[in-house]
């Protein structure tokens, strides 16, 4: 068992590293996509291990519920607070107290830095879904920290 402080520190060190390697305004997007792709790999690995002994999922909604409950609890030790969908492939996962942001701010301070702290997790979700056969685009949105909304757009195959 690893202590959560380790992941917390490693995560911020990774952000720091990727950010310094890609400096400049125009490189901001590349920085975020690098973090996202690292998260993707980790998400793939995690679901592979988490779902070893679980029965097959019934449908897309079942997969999303797994992400909101089991996956989120294993990674962030709480469930997603609210899951909404338009039943046309768009899901919004809301976490009112997102783990990666709680240490950062409880308001609008440092809001411009929030995307960096969410990119890895967006990848995590996309990777997890991808390993369960759901292709998606995952983005995140913050208006007041530490609350955060992840939007999952399912790509029809």
């Amino acid at each position, binding site marked *: *068992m*690893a*202590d*959560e*402080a*380790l*992941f917390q*520190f*490693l*995560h911020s*060190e*990774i952000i*720091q*590293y*990727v950010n310094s*390697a890609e400096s400049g305004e125009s490189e901001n997007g590349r920085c975020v996509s*690098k973090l996202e792709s*690292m*998260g993707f*790999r*980790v998400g793939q*690995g*995690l679901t592979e*291990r988490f779902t070893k002994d679980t029965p097959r999922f019934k449908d897309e909604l079942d997969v999303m519920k797994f992400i909101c409950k089991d996956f989120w609890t*294993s*990674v962030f*030790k709480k469930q997603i607070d609210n899951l909404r969908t338009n039943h046309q492939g768009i899901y919004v996962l809301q976490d009112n107290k997102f783990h990666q942001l709680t240490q950062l701010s409880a308001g609008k301070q440092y809001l411009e830095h929030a995307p960096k702290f969410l990119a890895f997790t967006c990848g995590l979700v996309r990777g997890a879904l991808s390993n369960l056969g759901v292709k998606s685009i995952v983005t995140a949105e913050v208006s007041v920290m530490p609350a955060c909304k992840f939007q999952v757009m399912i790509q029809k195959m």
Partner: protein
Amino acid sequence: TKRYSSESRENNSELFTLTYGALVTQLCKDYENDEEVNKQLDKMGYNIGVRLIEDFLARSSVGRCHDFRETADVIAKVAFKMYLGVTPSVTNWSPAGDEFSLILESNPLVDFVELPDNHSNLVYSSLLCGVLRGALEMVQMAVDVRFAQDTLRGDSVTEIRMKFIKRIEENLPAGDE
């Protein structure tokens, strides 16, 4: 107020291990040779270590260590246990008592890892050396840390060699004595 109970701080270790793996993979893409990757991992570890020591001192009731033997004990029995859930053994003391080895039966960082052949100089867990160096520097100890053996590279155990260099004097601003 206590924010976390000790159990709830235990994280999914797979998350940490896999995230570390993704980082090493990324660094291997970013840098041309393994030495550069080792250096970068060590540097990142150092940055983590200087922050981790605060967390450690705040959460453990460990006070100042009076000698290097005591330091070794705290690292192996308290710190490794708290953060990685393993307790390395402390062996191979130098006669002067300024050098020892941490022997790791298992290294959580290398779960699910196999080194590809073309990375023979990669010291996969270099981050750990940096963490130890950075943390000890914050308690006024300059220490040299390196991997002497590594199961990933075919050795039978993983051995981290620690050598005490010097005690770091408190830096007073010039003229302020």
